C-alpha cells in the first residue's frame, strides 16, 4: 500500500533537518513554529520505522485489546509512558479539565488487533496540572532512546504550553501508517 503523502513530506522535512541543519537559527525557527502553530502537530515526525519496512506485530500487539482504555494493554498504548489521561478525567484524545494539551508529541506505531492495521499514534502530554498519578503505563514498542527524541517517551513533552508541569498522556490516533 502507498503511504500518505503527508507522511512522506514530514519524513523528508525531518530527514533534511537532521542531515543538513547546523545553524541554530533554522532550528530555533522550527521550534518557534512548533510552539506557535499547533496546526502542525505532527512535526517533527519521523516515522517510527524506516521507509520501506512493514510494521510487524509485536509481543505487545499480540496481547492488546481495544475495549478498555484504562488498562495498559489497550492497543494504542504500545509506546506510551506515564499516566493515561483516560484515568484522570480525560480520554485518549482529550486532556482532563484543568490541563492543557501540548502541541508537540512523540510518535508511536501501534497495531489495532480488530483490523490488523498499523496506525500512527501521537502521544501528547497534558500539562499544567500536577501529576495525575493514576494508570501508569509504559509501553515500549519501538520506543527509542533519548537521542531519537521524536520516538522517546522519557522527555516531558510540554513544549509550547504555558507550563512544563506534566499531568498525563493522551494517545491520539493520527492515521493509518500504511
Amino acid at each position, binding site marked *: 500500500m502507498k503511504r500518505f503523502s503527508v507522511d512522506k513530506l514530514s519524513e523528508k522535512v525531518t530527514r533534511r533537518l537532521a542531515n543538513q541543519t547546523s545553524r*541554530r537559527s533554522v532550528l530555533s525557527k522550527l*521550534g518557534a513554529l512548533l510552539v506557535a502553530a499547533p496546526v502542525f502537530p505532527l512535526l517533527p515526525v*519521523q516515522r517510527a520505522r524506516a521507509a520501506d519496512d512493514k510494521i510487524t506485530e509485536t509481543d505487545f500487539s499480540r496481547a492488546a485489546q481495544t475495549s478498555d482504555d484504562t488498562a495498559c494493554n489497550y492497543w494504542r498504548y504500545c509506546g506510551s509512558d506515564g499516566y493515561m489521561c483516560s484515568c484522570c478525567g480525560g480520554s485518549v484524545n482529550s486532556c482532563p479539565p484543568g490541563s492543557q494539551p501540548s502541541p508537540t508529541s512523540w510518535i508511536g506505531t501501534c497495531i489495532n488487533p480488530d483490523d490488523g492495521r498499523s496506525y500512527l499514534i501521537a502521544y501528547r502530554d497534558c500539562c*499544567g496540572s500536577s501529576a495525575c498519578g493514576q494508570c501508569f503505563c509504559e509501553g515500549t514498542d519501538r520506543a*527509542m*532512546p533519548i537521542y*531519537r527524541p521524536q520516538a522517546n517517551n*522519557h522527555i516531558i513533552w510540554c513544549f509550547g504550553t504555558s507550563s*512544563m508541569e506534566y499531568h498525563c498522556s493522551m494517545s491520539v490516533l493520527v492515521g493509518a501508517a500504511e
Partner: protein
Amino acid sequence: MKNNRTMPNLAAKAALAVHVLALGGLSTGVAHAQAEPAKAPPPVLESEVATVTPLRPIKAHDLFIGQFDGGVRIIDGDTAKTLGQVYSSRYSNFALAPDNAFLYVAESYWARGNRGPREDLLSVYSTGKLDLVAEIKLPGRLISDPKTHNFHLSADGHYGYVYNFQPASSVVVVDLQKRKVVESVEIPGCGQALPWGARGFAALCADGAMAVANVDAKGKYSVKRTDKFFDVDNDPIFDESVIDRQTGEAFFLSYTGLIYPVKLGDTPQIGQPWSMQRAAGLAPATTKVGHETWRPSGSILSTYHRASGRLFVLMHEGMHWDYAKPGSEVWVLDTKQQKLITRLELPMAAGSIAVTQDAEPVLFAIGEGRLWVLNPDSGDVLRTTRLMGASLVAVKDF
C-alpha cells in the same frame, strides 16, 4: 505564638507526671533500701545546642542517589545508612567532581511552581558540608526523566556538559572553574553528551551514527559525524550505556544485548559488537516476535568496574522491546576477553545498579522499594535498607 504558649503548660504537666511517678517508685524503693544502701540519683542531663552533623570525607563505598521527586542522597554502602542529602528540583541531574570536592546539580525552577519565569541552573555544592557554594545560570536544559548522559563533566572536572533540547538539540558547555557558560554547541539529529579527553564530547544520533565535538586551537567547537554503525530502527543502543569519562572507553549496549566496544576521541574507534548471550553460551537474542530469552533491561542497567574491566548488566528473561523491565539477574562480563564471568541472581528484581571502583568493591542494586548492597563476586547480600527508587546513581572515582 499559640503553640509557644501551650508548650510550657504541657511541659509543666509532663514534669508533674514524672514527679508523681518518681514518688511512687520511691515507696517501693524504701523496702528495698533495707537490704542495700540507696544509690545516688543519676546526674541531671546537660542541656544541648542543636547543630549540623559534619559530613565525613567521601569514601569508595558511598552511593549518590538521585530521587525522582528531587534530592540527591548519600548512602554509606558499608552500613546502608543515609549520610546526608542536598536539595534538587524534580527532573534534576547531578555529577560528582573527579576530586570529590563538589557536587554539581543541573536543575530547573519556575517562579510559581508550575508557572512563571523559568530558571535553569547548575547549583554547586561542597561535599564538605553539602552547602550551596555557587549557582551558574544556564540558557536551558532538557526536562526529562533523568538520564546519566544528560549532564556530565570532563575527565578533569574543568568543564560541564548540559544536554539541551528546546526542541533543537544542543550541548551547553560550562567552565566549572570560572563558573560560567562557555558556548552552546548544536548537535542536530543527535542527543546527550558523552565526554572524552580534555574538552571533547560525543553524542549518539537518531540515524545510528555518532556526532563528535571537539575544540580548535581557538577553543571554538566544531562537530562532525561518523558513519552509521548500529541499527537504530530495530536494535537501538541504550541511552544509559556505560561511558568512562576518565578514559573515553564506552560500552554501547543494544536492546538485544550486543556490546559495541568504543574508544571515544576525535576519531572514535568503534569495535566489532559482541553478543552477551553468546558470551554466556546461549544463542544471541533476536528481534523476532515471540523470542523469549535473556535480555538487558532496566533503567540504569549497566555499570563498570574500571580496574578489573568487569561490566555488570541487569538482565531479565523476556521479549524484544521489553527493555525497561527490571532485571532479575546481573551478568558479570569480562570486557577484555568478551566472556561471561558469572551470573548473579538478585534477591528482588532491580531497575538500577552501580559498582564501586575500589579494590574490594560492592555492588548496589535498587528495586522494589529497597537498596541491596551485594558482593559483586558471589551476589551475596551484605546489607539492605528501604529506598524509594533512584533516578540516577553515582559512585566515587567514576
